[in-house]
């Protein structure tokens, strides 16, 4: 047998478990993100290169995860979940307070934010749990799965980190929903949630109440939290149909927009590229989500179906919550725009999720062929 030359073999090995369609969609979004970041930082190449570094690290994570066979992936669910819970409890007890919230854990060499890990760990754990009990699913199983979700969410909401709590709740709920939670129970949950709203309201931190009130009337605190919403809406609205043109957003470049490289980067984009740009951006998101749904529909096991569905829907939720928040239909909860906002941690978490999607897709096809 003649050995093939090295490079083609290596190349084949490198791309073996990557999904080309998904890669294309992600690539478009990531490039768009860098382009917008350049404008949002007033042409600061340093920040752009830092984000490139973030992306490269995250892509490596994605590639690694994509190459993990599914049965190994499943085996990690319980340990990762337990590890994450231990860290979360550690944060509650010994966490470092920054900006009034206890989110970070100092582990000597570095500070880490365990809630980020739970974004993957919670749906993974729930999907694993359903797979394990697949043959004998009863109401009790749904109840236990819900508990697996609510425990970390309660800890994270307490920190307080409303944005992450909402996202994890959503990802866990998607698993429950896709696992076939009966409509009657979902209806019951909805009624219960509505009934407990006044109680939950009293549990919220003042600043969280403040932010929700701000949504109803941003002008109430025009110098504080309402300022974000008002300026975001002005940026989006003034962009019009065609936008003001790249690097020409007045809101952005005259310092009116707060947090414009992170949570409010969509306002920068929307101001400069207008409704047309928004449509293109939504199109790119739909591209990613569509591919995610196709992978989900073709997934071969119960576990992979649940996991792929949850990852796809959570990604959409990220995007929806962020754009809704910038355009003033959702409260400002601190959720970045996925793949676009500046920041290494959320980039890594997101691409890790896509790595799993690719693993689910490519390993399945290998089995079949």
């Amino acid at each position, binding site marked *: 047998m003649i050995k093939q030359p090295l490079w083609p073999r290596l190349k084949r090995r490198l791309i073996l478990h990557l999904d080309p369609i998904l890669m294309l969609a992600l690539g478009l979004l990531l490039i768009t993100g860098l382009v917008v970041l350049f404008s949002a930082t007033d042409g600061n190449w340093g920040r752009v290169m830092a984000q490139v570094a973030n992306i490269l690290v995250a892509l490596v994570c994605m590639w690694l995860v994509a190459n993990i066979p599914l049965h190994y992936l499943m085996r990690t669910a319980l340990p990762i979940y337990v590890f994450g819970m231990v860290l979360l409890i550690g944060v509650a007890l010994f966490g470092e307070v920054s900006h009034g919230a206890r989110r970070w854990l100092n582990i000597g060499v570095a500070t880490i934010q365990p809630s980020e890990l739970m974004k993957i760990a919670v749906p993974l754990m729930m999907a694993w749990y359903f797979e394990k009990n697949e*043959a004998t699913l009863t109401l009790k199983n749904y109840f236990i799965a819900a508990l697996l979700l609510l425990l970390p969410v309660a800890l994270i909401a307490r920190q307080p980190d409303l944005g992450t709590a909402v996202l994890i709740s959503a990802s866990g709920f998607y698993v429950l929903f896709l696992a076939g939670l009966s409509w009657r129970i979902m209806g019951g949950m909805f009624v219960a949630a509505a009934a407990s709203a006044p109680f939950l309201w009293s549990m919220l931190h003042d600043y969280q109440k403040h932010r929700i009130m701000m949504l109803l009337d941003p002008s109430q605190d025009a110098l504080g939290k309402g300022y974000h919403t008002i300026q975001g809406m002005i940026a989006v609205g003034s962009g019009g149909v065609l936008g003001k043109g790249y690097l020409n957003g007045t809101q952005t470049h005259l310092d009116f927009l707060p947090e414009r490289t992170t949570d409010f980067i969509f306002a920068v984009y929307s101001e400069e590229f207008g409704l047309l740009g928004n449509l293109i951006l*939504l199109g790119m998101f739909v591209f990613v989500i569509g591919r995610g749904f196709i992978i989900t529909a073709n997934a071969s096991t119960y576990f992979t179906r649940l996991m792929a569905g949850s990852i796809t829907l959570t990604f959409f939720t990220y995007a929806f919550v962020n754009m809704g928040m910038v355009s003033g239909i959702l409260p400002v909860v601190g959720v970045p725009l996925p793949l676009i906002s500046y920041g290494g941690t959320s980039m890594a978490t997101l691409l890790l999720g896509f790595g799993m999607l690719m693993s689910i897709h490519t390993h399945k096809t290998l089995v079949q062929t």
Partner: protein
Amino acid sequence: MKHRVELKNSQREIYYFRLRLVLSIGFVLLLLFLLLTRFVYLQVIKHSHYQTLAENNRISVVPIVPNRGLILDRNGVILAHNYSGYTLEIVPSKVTDMEATIDQLAQLVDIQIKDRKRFKKLLLESHNFESLPIRNRLSDEEVARFAAQSYRFPGVEIKARLFREYPYNEQTSHLIGYIGRINDSDIQQLEDDETVGNYRGSDYIGKTGIEQSYESELHGTTGIEQMEVDAGGRGVRVISRTPPVSGNTLVLTLDAKLQEIAWQAFGNYRGALVAIDPTNGEVLAFISKPGYDPNLFIDGIDEDSWNELNNSPDVPLNNRALRGQYPLGSTIKPFMALAGLYYGKRSPSYAISDPGYFTLPGSSHHYRDWKKGGHGMVDMFKSIVVSCDTYYYGLAVELGIDNMYNFLSQFGFGKPTGIDLEGETSGLMPSQDWKMKHYKQKWYAGDTVSAGIGQGYDLTTPMQLAFATAVLANDGVGYRPHLVRQVQRSGSKDTTIPEVKPEFTINLNPEHVALVKSAMVAVTQPGGTAAMAGAGAAYAFAGKTGTAQVVGIKQGAKYDASQLSERNRDHAWFIAFAPADKPKIAIAVLVENGGHGGTVAAPIARKMMDYYLLGKVPATAPSSIKAQSGVAAAQTSAASAVEDEHD
């Protein structure tokens, strides 16, 4: 669904799953449609509205900084106020050559080296786009001269601003504190408190003293002006205006005149003093001397002034009244006497024969009395009047350190008083537990002996001792000491008066208290340790002298003030209250390196009492304090009984 347990129907399951997936897709499309609708609403329907806001006439939200609240004394005398003036400010990012610009400016307005240094420091600490003052308080002439030339200086502006001023200067520096420019750690704090919005546009924040602890009352609420600005950023039209609400006026419990008299009375001495109204905890005077000029700190202190303050051997920046910790010395004796009576270790009439020293059973070590040869027969009354050390050595040993700890802690020793200033230290009241925890050593009997006259591990602050004295004067009923009498809401007649109620009541026998008080009155009468200071008082003047040692005196050696360098001389204590039958004021005075309490510290208290109770203002300059110090050396109560090392 009901019988799924028996049979896993893969086909059916996938069907159900795909159904759910389709529903999910529907959900996604619905929300996408919602977003799209919102975009169309904002970018098409309301586009011209937002375009007006953003592009043609950008709305700028301009904060209007509120006036900071005033600080007044209890009679309305101004302790901190604002006045308007002009400042010359530079935005560094708009200036290309800073040095040259400043040189050119110096030809128009007076800019000294001090100003340059201060400005350089500000530059390092601030962001480039902030407007930073190079000169404050410009004269009208300087303003006119610059205005004529201002076109030459892009990025340099004259601004009208309110300046903070503290008329009492160093006299109230440790009490009122000062404001200073907001720095990064202040911003962090404001973000944590979720109040950073209210500080948009504000340059200053309280850094120490009342200015710091009552920041939230004094700052006020920032107003907002929504203004249309043209492409150049100049205001075109005011759209809406929410006026700022000025900070609240604080009326302090302090009596500025009393403060001034006390300050003068210290003469050239360093030290601290706190006077409290025992019936309600109001702080009437609060002095830490030397002070500093708080006005220097407001716009960032220049390096030379800072070095001078920071390196001075007198440590003027140290708040001695709140943070200085000194041994109690003989001022512990009235409290010890009460403890002896409370635990039944002494009856009022029980008397000892004082040979001038005390020995522990089985030891030859002499714990000396301050008076060589002793005081003869000494009962409790006399023990306080002449400040007999031997009496309290024995009492301490019989009480034991833990009883002393339990009893004296009730008066607030060893813990912060909770006064409304930040940074109070807690002092120290030792116990067996404490020594074990901190030194990993057991408590020795010898430790108890010296603790009996307040020369052991014990430490107190002038604030704390004044509080304990007030509690004693008020028969064991304690009110939390506080500095703010009322908060006047700005723009209305509303005032808030903090609630004053007793915080605790110590279980004391009235007869015991009466005995100790009468002995303290005798202290200021002929034969007492503060007889000179008490001479001719028109009210019952209760007091107790004390001495806090700076250096230990060896066994057999003699304390001789004239042989010690000035900074190694003892600190003088005096605690007092009057009128003894119905006390209106309680004072603790500490004079650093003052030697004897009766000679230097007591006259300060006397002058304050005379003013506070009789309205008498001292006529002569306080130099008399120094002159007296040689005279009354015979009454020295230097409790010079520190054990030597080989005990």
